[in-house]
C-alpha cells in the first residue's frame, strides 16, 4: 500500500502547486481575441473587419504584427504600466526580430498609447508615435469619431514601419530559451542503460537512483520547476525499475522504450491559439508614445 500512499501525496502536492500559481495584478490583461480587440466597444463592426483584413494582409507582406486594444477603463492603473504588461503577455511581433506594435485606447481616461516592440523602434520612433497620436488620432477622437481616428492611426503606423521587414524574414520556429527537452533525452537514455546494466539484480536500488538522478537531469536541462521535478521523480522511479528489469539479460536497447515517452515533453508548452491569431513572441522595452484627447 505504501507506493499508493506516496502517489496520493504526490498528487495532493501537485494540486496545491497548481492552485498557488497566478500573480495578483492591478488590472488584468484581457485575452487576445484577434488583431482588433475592442473591449470598450467604440468601433463599428465594419471598421473592425476592415482593420482586421488590412492588418492581416500587412502581416503577410511585412512580417509585422500590429494590434489594436481598446479598454473601457484602466481602473486607476497607469497607462504605461498596463500597456507594457499587455505587450509582455501578448508578445505581439515575431520572435527574435520583435516586429510588433500595439495601439491602446482607454476610453474613460481619454488616454491612448502606441507601444512599440524593439524591432520597430527604428522606424516607429517615440517621435513618430507621438506625432501619429497628436496629429492624426487625437483630432478625430476629439470629435468623437473613434472609427476614423483608429483607421487613420493604424494606417499611419503601417506607413511608418513599411519596409522594415519583408515577408521573407520569418525566422524558423524554435523552442523557448535554452530549456531544450530534446537535449536531455540522449544523456538520460545513457543514464538508464548504465543503471540497468550495473544494478540489474537490485531493482529497488535502480528505482531509487533513477528517482534521484532523473530530477538532477531535469535541473540541468530544464531549469528549476517543482512540477517538472515531480514528474521526473516518477519517470526516474519507473525508468530505473524498467531498465533494471529489461537489461537484466545484459543489454538489449534500454533506451528504446523511453524515446517516444519523452517526445511528449517538447510539445507541452504550446499555448492556446484563440481565433487563429496569436503573438509571435516579440519583445518590448517601453518604446512608443502616450497622449490624451
Amino acid at each position, binding site marked *: 500500500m505504501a507506493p499508493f500512499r506516496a502517489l496520493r501525496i504526490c498528487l495532493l502536492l501537485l494540486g496545491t502547486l497548481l492552485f498557488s500559481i497566478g500573480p495578483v495584478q492591478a488590472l488584468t490583461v484581457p485575452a487576445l481575441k484577434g488583431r482588433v480587440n475592442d473591449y470598450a466597444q467604440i468601433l463599428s463592426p465594419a471598421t473592425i473587419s476592415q482593420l482586421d483584413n488590412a492588418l492581416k494582409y500587412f502581416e503577410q507582406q511585412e512580417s509585422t504584427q500590429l494590434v489594436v486594444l481598446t479598454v473601457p477603463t484602466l481602473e486607476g492603473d497607469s497607462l*504605461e504600466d498596463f500597456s*507594457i504588461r499587455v505587450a509582455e503577455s501578448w508578445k505581439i511581433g515575431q520572435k527574435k526580430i520583435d516586429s510588433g506594435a500595439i495601439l491602446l485606447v482607454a476610453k474613460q481616461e481619454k488616454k491612448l498609447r502606441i507601444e512599440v516592440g524593439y524591432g520597430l523602434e527604428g522606424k516607429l*520612433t*517615440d*517621435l513618430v*508615435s*507621438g*506625432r501619429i497620436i*497628436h496629429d492624426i488620432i487625437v483630432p478625430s477622437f476629439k470629435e468623437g469619431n473613434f472609427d476614423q481616428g483608429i483607421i487613420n492611426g493604424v494606417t499611419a503606423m503601417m506607413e511608418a514601419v513599411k519596409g522594415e521587414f519583408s515577408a521573407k524574414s520569418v525566422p524558423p520556429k524554435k523552442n523557448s530559451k535554452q530549456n531544450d527537452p530534446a537535449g536531455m533525452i540522449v544523456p538520460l537514455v545513457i543514464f538508464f542503460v*548504465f543503471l540497468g*546494466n*550495473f544494478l540489474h539484480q537490485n531493482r529497488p536500488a535502480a528505482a531509487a537512483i533513477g528517482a534521484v*538522478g532523473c530530477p*538532477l*537531469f531535469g*535541473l*540541468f536541462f530544464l*531549469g*528549476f520547476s517543482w512540477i517538472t521535478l515531480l514528474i521526473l521523480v516518477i519517470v526516474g522511479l519507473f525508468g530505473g525499475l524498467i531498465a533494471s528489469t529489461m537489461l537484466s539479460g545484459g543489454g538489449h536497447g534500454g533506451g528504446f522504450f523511453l524515446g517516444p515517452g519523452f517526445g511528449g515533453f517538447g510539445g507541452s508548452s504550446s499555448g492556446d491559439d484563440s481565433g487563429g491569431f496569436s503573438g509571435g513572441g516579440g519583445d*518590448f*522595452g*517601453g*518604446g*512608443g*508614445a*502616450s497622449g490624451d484627447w
Partner: protein
Amino acid sequence: MQRPIKLFTLFLIALTLSGCGYNALQMKEEAVSKAWADIESNLQRRADLIPNLVETVKGYAGHEKETLTQVTEARSKASSIQLSPADLGNPAAMKQLQEAQGGLTSALSRLMVVVEKYPDLKANQSFRDLQSQLEGTENRINVARQRYNQAVEDFNASIRVFPASLTNSLLLHLQKKEYFKAEAGAQAVPKVNFK
C-alpha cells in the same frame, strides 16, 4: 562491481555540481549585468536629448535661465557618474548614481512645469517632438529599471537559497546586487508657482 559504482558516483557528482546552481548563478549574474546595461543606455539616451531641449526652450523662454542652468548642471553631474557591472554590488556607488539621476529627473520636471507658461513653445513642433522623445525615454528607463530589479531579486534570492548558497560561498563568491530604486525626486510632484 566496484569500478562501475565508482564511475557512477563520479557521474552523479558532476551532475550534482550543475544541479547545485553553479551554472545557474553565473547566468543569473549575467542577466543582472545585461539588465543594467539596458538602464545605462536609456539614461545615456536621456542625457543626449537634453542639450537640444535646452536650446529649444531657450528660444522661447530665454529668461528662465535659472531653471535651464539647473537642468544643464544636473545633466553633467548625472553623466559624470557611471557604474561598471562590478560596482552593482556597491551600495554607496549605486546611491550616488541614483541621487545624480534623481536630480536630473526633478530638474527636468521643473522645466516642464515652467514651460506651461509659454503656449508658443508648447505649440512648437520640434519642442513637441522632443517632449515625445523625452517621455518615451523616461518610460524606457522605467521599464528597464523594473526588469533590472527583477533580475536582481532573482539573483539575490538564488545566492541565499540552499544548494546554490553553498556553491556560492565555497566556489563563486558572488556579491549581492543593489536595487535601482525609483528616484525620490521623481515621486514628489513639482510645485507650480503662478506669479
